[in-house]
């Protein structure tokens, strides 16, 4: 199996083996992220294929420092678009549960116009994550970046699902307070 810089070099050289190597090394990783969001293996497979093509179009000019995160972001965004498309008329499924949880983090009132820039909010979230101890940060990222189920997270950490829910509740409350502090006057 090739190292990440070697795979990236294949993209830079416009060698189609880049996609095969990406699939060999990161196919399972990308599929899991897509499945966590979509719950449909057919949709997930399409999103993963789209991810490879978007990666092909993006490198070059881009040259990612972290290839796994780069792929993860693309597959997550494509899967979210697919989720929106599939659920335009009605809401259901575990992704809707996850998004409902995130409503706890949204400050009441209005954010200032500048903070609607996703990049700035991401910066605030980055700072917030930096203040957390590692285990809590990983639990947050697994739930809200990788969209892992609470059961999977609980199993990974030897916790009960109730303990994970409790931790996530506290994290959401803290994130909400941070977002309010940065941009909202209640």
């Amino acid at each position: 199996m090739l190292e990440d810089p070697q795979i990236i070099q294949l993209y830079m050289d416009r060698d189609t083996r880049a996609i095969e190597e990406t699939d060999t090394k990161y196919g399972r990783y990308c599929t899991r992220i897509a499945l966590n969001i979509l719950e449909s293996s057919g949709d997930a497979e399409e999103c993963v294929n789209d991810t490879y093509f978007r990666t092909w179009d993006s490198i070059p000019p881009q040259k990612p420092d972290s290839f796994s995160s780069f792929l993860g972001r693309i597959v997550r965004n494509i899967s979210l678009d697919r989720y929106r498309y599939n659920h335009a008329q009605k809401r259901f499924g575990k992704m809707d549960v996850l998004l409902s949880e995130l409503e706890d983090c949204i400050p009441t009132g209005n954010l200032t116009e500048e903070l609607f820039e996703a990049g700035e909010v991401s910066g605030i979230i980055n700072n917030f994550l930096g203040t957390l101890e590692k285990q809590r940060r990983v639990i947050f990222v697994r739930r809200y970046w990788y969209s892992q189920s609470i059961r999977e997270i609980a199993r990974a950490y030897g916790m009960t699902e109730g303990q994970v829910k409790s931790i996530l509740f506290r994290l959401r409350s803290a994130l909400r307070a941070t977002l309010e502090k940065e941009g909202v006057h209640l």
Partner: protein
Amino acid sequence: MNREELFGAIGGIQDTYIEEANPELASPPIPLVRRLRPYIGMAAVFVLVIGLAVLGRNTLFRSGSTGSAEFSRATADNARADTAAASPEAAGGLETVEETAAEYGLYSKDQAEGTTEDKAQFIMESGLLSPETLLPITYGGEVYAPVWAELETEMPSGCQQVGELSTETDAVFYLENASLEGSLVYQIASEENTLYVAYADGWQRYEK
């Protein structure tokens, strides 16, 4: 800002956080023993309760099988107990059974039948209550979230008892346990969005 925009914003977190949480690179699965650890405490409490129930039952049977006179006395005790159950004023016959339970060190009669604080103390000692296990409560139709600070060891100034939690009228969310039923609720008149629930070692603050 809506929830999907927030989900999108979380997508922009830095690579290091994404990599450290990558489930594909995670360490090997947690050993079975550690995975079962959260359930061991619950199982131990369950076994203890069942064991005490069996022990108590055996004690009653023993006292009733050592001879016809004792059997008659036990029968009379049981009759008194039945009478006491139907009529609390004549509760004298139950004393023997309750004192026997206290001798085994589980909890005293006062703790079993005492104040809310006594019950909460028992829950604390059983390991079921801790800041990690507290979840939001619903009181008067409103959801209150626990505030994660040290418990107030003194009753907060101006606090007045305003009611108690009930599983019938107020959903009490408490991790794997609904024993907050009956806990006393306090409030400071000038703080409508805050309430305090009395536990054995202090008052937990909740906010709407």
